[in-house]
């Protein structure tokens, strides 16, 4: 009979107690592993968020944003300047237009005879809309004006009514954005649900990408045609932005939008991607300096997201602390159990010493016994963890993004606030697709993670068994043999 065989036998001397010890160890080890897995999942998520969204800067005309504010529009030359700034990897220009339903515009101008000038442009020519241009379309908005739409429209005074107290029926415009790459106005890749992209986004094209609800409202699908400014466009694909506001929109290639607005080379915004997270702050400063504070406003689109990232970071820390705590608990359990077992077998240690057992053999015997217990606890615990960790990780992340959502507030929908339409103030679901991504994080335990966690428990078990066993073995045998 070897030391190992004897240790295994000893581990099962008291079967009820062994079962209880293994169960408690399994819970602690399972929890520790689940926390480690959660920690990894969150760490992975943070890295992913940093990598994808965290490196995007948004450039708006100085003093203007979307259809609000004032100042001078951005130009193609400024895009070239931005692209030359160190650490800037890509610059994507956008040109936003507001499309009004042609039939409605005709009806409105009819009822408002004599209201010429900007009034003829429908709702788009308000005081703050230099960077966008209103044009007519065959499309009908997917959003009803409702209270907010009418209130917003009244606030912008855009109909140019001359003393008329009864405002005519108003409909929400459709936002058309010319984009220089297949990204939305926050620099995030478009989520196409049907069809294809527009190919070369820097060339004129009659293709368009429509939001799902907009296409549905107008009975359009991939391949259907519609008109903007009496020109025919073909639906090349459908996208889902995740919000009603975001889906009442369409995307064109940048030159197409600029041509439709009769403003070639003019940009509403520039989406600037920096090559790495560390360079974002420096690049932002450099970009602002290169473009001039009087010409452009550079903002860090993910500033708000950083709150999410930092709160995810705190989840990461909490889960790590919980991992350490659960591990320490497992260690404490095995430590106390081994102290108890050694005390209980003091006399036996004396007998082993009397018949010539070296201290190291006695130490080894208890270490192996502890390892047998921990091994069983780990196997059961790993099974528990593999069931629990996915749930724990997503619970941690989703509950955390709920708090993050509260703090991120008005994260850019691209046109914050001032859009006359049903979007109101963006912020209902500020993280949009990111939220979905976050909650869908399923913690998958890498073998290295599991091994690391278990190795730590084994380490504690070895010390927990060795210390009391050796302390007892070093006493003169007669003292333990005599008993108390």
């Amino acid at each position, binding site marked *: *009979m*070897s030391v190992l065989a004897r240790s295994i036998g000893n581990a099962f001397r008291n079967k009820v107690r062994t079962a209880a010890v293994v169960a408690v160890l399994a819970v602690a080890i399972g929890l520790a592993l689940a926390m480690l897995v959660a920690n990894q999942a969150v760490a992975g998520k943070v890295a992913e968020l940093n990598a994808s969204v965290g490196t995007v800067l948004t450039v708006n005309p100085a003093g203007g944003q979307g259809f609000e504010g004032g100042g001078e529009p951005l130009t193609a030359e400024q895009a070239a300047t931005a692209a030359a700034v160190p650490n800037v990897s890509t610059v994507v220009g956008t040109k936003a237009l507001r499309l009004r339903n042609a039939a409605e515009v005709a009806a409105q101008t009819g009822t408002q005879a004599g209201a010429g000038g900007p009034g003829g442009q429908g709702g788009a020519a308000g005081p703050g809309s230099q960077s966008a241009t209103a044009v007519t379309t065959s499309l009908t908005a997917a959003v009803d004006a409702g209270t907010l739409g009418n209130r917003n429209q009244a606030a912008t005074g855009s109909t140019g009514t001359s003393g008329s107290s009864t405002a005519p029926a108003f409909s929400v415009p459709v936002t058309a954005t010319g984009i220089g790459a297949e990204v939305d106005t926050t620099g995030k890749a478009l989520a196409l649900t049907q069809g294809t992209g527009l190919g070369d986004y820097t060339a004129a094209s009659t293709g368009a990408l429509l939001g799902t609800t907009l296409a549905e409202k107008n009975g359009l699908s991939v391949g259907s045609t519609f008109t903007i400014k009496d020109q025919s466009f073909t639906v090349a694909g459908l996208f889902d932005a995740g919000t009603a506001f975001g889906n009442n929109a369409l995307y064109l290639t940048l030159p197409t939008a600029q041509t439709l607005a009769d403003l070639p080379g003019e940009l509403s915004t520039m989406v600037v991607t920096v090559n790495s997270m560390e360079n974002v702050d420096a690049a932002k400063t450099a970009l602002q300096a290169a473009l001039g504070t009087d010409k452009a406003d550079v903002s860090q689109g993910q500033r708000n997201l950083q709150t999410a990232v930092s709160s995810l970071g705190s989840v990461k820390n909490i889960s790590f602390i919980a991992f350490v705590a659960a591990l320490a608990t497992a260690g404490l359990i095995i430590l106390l159990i081994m102290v108890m077992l050694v005390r209980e077998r003091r006399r036996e240690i*004396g007998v082993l*010493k*009397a*018949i010539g*057992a070296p201290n190291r053999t006695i130490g080894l015997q208890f270490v192996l016994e502890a390892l047998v217990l921990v091994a069983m606890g780990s196997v059961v615990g790993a099974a528990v963890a593999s069931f629990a960790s996915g749930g724990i990780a997503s619970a941690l992340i989703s509950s955390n993004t709920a708090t993050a959502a509260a703090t991120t507030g008005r994260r850019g929908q691209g046109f914050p606030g001032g859009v006359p339409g049903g979007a109101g103030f963006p912020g209902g679901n500020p993280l949009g697709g990111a939220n979905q991504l976050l909650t869908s994080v399923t913690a998958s335990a890498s073998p290295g993670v599991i091994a690391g966690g278990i190795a730590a428990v084994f380490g504690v078990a070895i010390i927990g068994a060795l210390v009391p066993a050796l302390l007892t073995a070093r006493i*003169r045998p*007669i*003292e333990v043999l005599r008993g108390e």
Partner: protein
Amino acid sequence: MIEVKNLVRTFKSGDRTITPVNDVSFELEQGTLASIVGKSGSGKSTLLSLLGALDKPTSGDVLVNGVSLAGMPDGQLTEYRRRDIGFVFQQFNLIPNLSALDNVMLPMEFAGIRKAARQERARHLLEQVQLDPDKHVRRINRLSGGEQQRVAIARALANAPKLILADEPTGNLDEQTGEHIIELLSSLSRNHNTTILVVTHDRSLANKTDRRFRLQQGQLTEEAARSRIAAASPA
């Protein structure tokens, strides 16, 4: 050959010091069966544990074939217990969840003897103490007291020690079983040339030994020597 020289062991309990072993000296030739009698608490167990290196003397020395235990490092004392000493205790002190065979094999495992050799010798030793090695592979605590003590004796013989120290080996056994155990020890000392020192307070058992000592107030005195032949031959 065991030489005990001016052995002293004192204990402090509170502010009182007791000296159960007070300047004890004697010698035992190899192969002697000796006994120590004395009242309970007279220090018999204390003396035995000093001889077996389970305890360290306050002063004095024990020499085993001329080698002094005093100042020997713990590692060597462990080796001394393993190689030169066999213990037999009043409470048997077998490892409860091991079989008889495994118990007897244990000291040989510590001595690094190969498994097959251990097993063969353990079976042989169990046969010597009149136990069936095949029958007694089962758990120790199902054996009777006499059987357990015989397993303990087989275990004490495992590494062929020079000296067997038996502390009241018959104390937990009935008279007849006790007699058997003493006879067993007696025949072992004769057949294996093993020195055996038995502590007992049973006079009739002590009378069967070659040399009889009495421990009283920490002092060891020897009673009149008897011849081995006289002790061995039935009246």
